[in-house]
């Protein structure tokens, strides 16, 4: 089941008395690379959790094409790829074992796919090493490949550039552009405005659980971010 658009309508999420999201509405379409920007505690990770079907909204409606998130059938979850701040990797297992496990979990079989993912992560020669021995950057690259293993339609990335060197950042940015060009919807939450500038096609600025700006990306993101956060 594929979809070309995701739509959130008045989505709120409360944790006890704390409001993490307040009546958030957004639409993202196939080919978009949406940058979710905002200070710590703005609600970016909660919004990603809601979109990943892992956090149930307190109220509001989340739609993936014509399908609602409340049903969250396995087939829908299989079209979502998530790279969270925690990397969803087993440190005791090797890079290859991690990828093979998640590939099988997604119903993908074949050593070639795992080998290709290892090569794409730049870990072809470290595939049989335990992840616990990897640097943060190596884990980050591996986690990205794990999240993209099943060629998801909706790609959700929480701080995808953490721990990456310049070369790896270029590779990941190129990878995200290709995914969007192939029809994926990419949402990335980041604090790194310099990296987001030039990569994202749309910018959503969040503060205190609300989207305070939603606009097409344009050069000079840092200056506009400061102006908007200051004005909010």
């Amino acid at each position, binding site marked *: 089941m594929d979809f070309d658009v995701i739509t959130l309508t008045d989505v709120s999420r409360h944790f006890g008395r704390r409001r993490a999201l307040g009546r958030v509405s957004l639409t993202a379409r196939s080919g978009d690379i949406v940058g979710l920007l905002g200070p710590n505690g703005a609600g970016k990770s909660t919004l990603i959790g809601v979109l*990943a079907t*892992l956090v149930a909204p307190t109220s509001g409606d989340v739609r993936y094409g014509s399908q609602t998130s409340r049903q969250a059938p396995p087939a*829908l979850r*299989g079209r979502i790829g998530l790279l*969270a701040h*925690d*990397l*969803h990797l087993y440190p005791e297992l090797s890079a290859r074992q991690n990828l093979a496990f998640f590939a099988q979990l997604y119903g993908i079989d074949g050593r070639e796919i795992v080998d290709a993912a290892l090569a794409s992560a730049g870990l072809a020669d470290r595939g049989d090493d335990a992840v616990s021995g990897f640097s943060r950057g190596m884990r980050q690259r591996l986690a990205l490949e794990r999240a993209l293993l099943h060629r998801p339609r909706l790609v959700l990335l929480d701080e995808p550039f953490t721990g990456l060197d310049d070369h790896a950042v270029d590779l990941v940015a190129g990878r995200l552009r290709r995914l969007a060009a192939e029809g994926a919807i990419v949402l990335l939450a980041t604090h790194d405005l310099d990296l987001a500038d030039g990569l994202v096609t749309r910018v959503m600025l969040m503060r205190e659980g609300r989207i305070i700006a939603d606009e097409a990306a344009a050069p000079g993101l840092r200056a506009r971010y400061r102006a908007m956060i200051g004005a909010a």
Partner: protein
Amino acid sequence: MFARVALLVLKKDFAIEVKSREILYTTLFFAVSCVLVFAFALVRDGRAIDDAAAGILWIAIAFAGTLALGRTFERERYGETLRALLLAPAPRPAIYVGKLLGIVVLLLLAETILVPLVALLFQAAFFARPWLLAGLLVAGTIGFASVGTLFAAMLVRSRTRDVMLPILLYPITVPVIIAGVRGTSALLQPVPDEPAAAMWMALLVCFDVVFVTLALWTFEPLMTE
């Protein structure tokens, strides 16, 4: 699909345990220590208190099981891999079953050490009716682990999980422990009371059916944040 995913999760846990041996060794060490402490306290001049063996065996299983449950889900907490499992296009109850099978296998392994140890230290005739004892242990272990696996999964993101797990687990599993102790005790009588042991085993199987069914039914809604 369901069985494939459950076996995948079991296989993954097994692969991690083969590399780390952490949970097996800590569970065994704790269970054996527990039995030894009771042996020092309750065995005088080479004679154990009557009917103590069955209770000590099941207490050691429950305590060691609680430790194993906590550690198994600690692995899923590190790196938030439980969220990755829940996001996969697999039936979520299958993930529960995979984790449950891993705990049951681990506890049954621990019991293969515990039963001869308790039999030796407390002069208990555990092997007079080995198949009935095996039935009681398997049924009791499934009942205890089915509730424990659900609670451990629920508490994985709670900061007080180490305290909350036994507080939630023991009251709910009291019927399983009582049935296990009474059934085992019936086998340890001078003339083993097989009908009583079989009755307790049947009761344990009923608990298993109820607990596993409830856990399968509630796992998915409970795991959604």
